[in-house]
């Protein structure tokens, strides 16, 4: 017994080192698996607050650019609206929020955006109290950004498409073939679309959109255009480089998409146990 205690005391630094190493390695490994990296996250009040402070300073420098982007988006939406109804000043006012619309959008601002690491996350200033939940899709005016992974009361962490854990269903605009969108960690504005069957007819410059197979993103949200494509080693699937519409290094504001039918769809998809 004496010897054991002596051994422990003699090697206490080494044992402490091993313990701390073990702890930090567990945290590291957890951060590499989807939906498990909950302990060390910037959504806590300390880092969220500090990033908010930084945002409130930096915000002023991008106002002009932000305004222009909002105007552009407004023009697009107005053009689309004028196609739908000849007379944009509707004679009777209809409150669309009372309808059972499939998706609701929530706006938010980006507090922190990474793009130079292998696993990148984005911190936004909306949390549970604003109705953000995990697995909600995040887009900007131009295209998709990522999926909410972790929420706290006031902040949420978004797993960016520039993350090795991110896998998003995406397809071609002109046909129904689809694949999954991943990132190889190199260029923050180019992502890869994998497992598109070789029967698909591709052309450089074709548009890639979300295909609405999951409840996260509605169909038809822009992702990017085909930059390059080749067949994989087995000659059965295409590997496509996609140039993103978004500039991932410059995301000012985002919209979170709440799918109002998600629970209903999930209920149908899960097999019933009692039968």
């Amino acid at each position, binding site marked *: 017994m004496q010897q054991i205690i002596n051994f422990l005391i003699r090697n*206490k*630094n080494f044992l*402490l*080192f091993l313990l*701390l*190493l073990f*702890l*930090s*390695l*567990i*945290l*590291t*490994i*957890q*951060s*590499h698996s989807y939906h498990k*990296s909950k302990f*060390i*996250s*910037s959504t*806590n009040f*300390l*880092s969220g607050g*500090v*990033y908010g402070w*930084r945002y409130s300073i930096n915000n002023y420098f991008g106002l002009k650019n932000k305004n222009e982007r909002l105007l552009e988006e407004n023009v697009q939406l107005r053009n689309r609206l004028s196609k739908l109804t000849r007379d944009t000043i509707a004679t009777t006012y209809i409150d669309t929020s009372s309808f059972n619309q499939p998706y609701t959008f929530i706006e938010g601002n980006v507090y*922190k955006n*990474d*793009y*130079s*690491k*292998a*696993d990148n*996350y984005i*911190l936004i200033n909306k949390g549970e109290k604003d109705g953000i939940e995990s697995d909600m899709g995040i887009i900007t005016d131009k295209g998709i950004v990522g999926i909410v992974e972790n929420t706290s009361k006031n902040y949420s*962490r978004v797993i960016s498409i520039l993350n*090795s854990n991110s896998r998003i269903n995406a397809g071609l605009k002109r046909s129904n073939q689809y694949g999954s969108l991943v990132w190889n*960690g*190199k260029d*923050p504005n180019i992502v890869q679309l994998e497992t598109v069957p070789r029967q698909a007819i591709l052309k450089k410059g074709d548009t890639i959109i979300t295909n609405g197979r999951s409840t996260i993103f509605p169909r038809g949200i822009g992702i990017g255009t085909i930059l390059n494509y080749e067949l994989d080693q087995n000659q059965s699937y295409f590997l496509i480089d996609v140039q993103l519409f978004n500039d991932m*290094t410059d995301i000012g504001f985002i919209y979170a998409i709440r799918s109002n039918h998600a629970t209903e769809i999930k209920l149908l998809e899960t097999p019933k146990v009692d039968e």
Partner: protein
Amino acid sequence: MNNNILLYIGRFLILVLVQVFVLNHINFLGYLNPYIYIIFILLAPININKSLFLFLSFILGLTIDLFGDSGGIHATACICIAYLRPVILRSVFGLSYEFQTVKLSKVGFGQRLAYVTLIVLIHHIILFSLEIFNFSHILLIAKKTLFSSLFSIIVIMVVLVLFRRKDS
């Protein structure tokens, strides 16, 4: 002594804030960031309690991880260099370390550069291996380690020269 503790706490806070506010967003050439918060580990007193030192390094790394959403990679890298620091000190400074008379502001440029380079290299190798976490990308790890280390070493040496303590 009391004064020194305040100095170390202040250094800790300032280094963390500068790292997460400014240096994590430099992205020089697209992906290069200098990691200068390890100056805290570089400049810790030679005769510091080893257990306390390990624990402080762990907290330092974990704080950076918290802000950067990087799991535990900085914490791992930090405790490794904290544990290896005595070995590196002995191999770089030799006898004067044994007698605990090393003052980083007084040693020659060559010795200081060797010390900083060794620590930064070990830190960055561990950091980027864990960040990318995929040995099929070993070239990417090597590239990131090499260029980031160069960047970090230059910035750290400049900071050490600029903020040298005049009194001691």
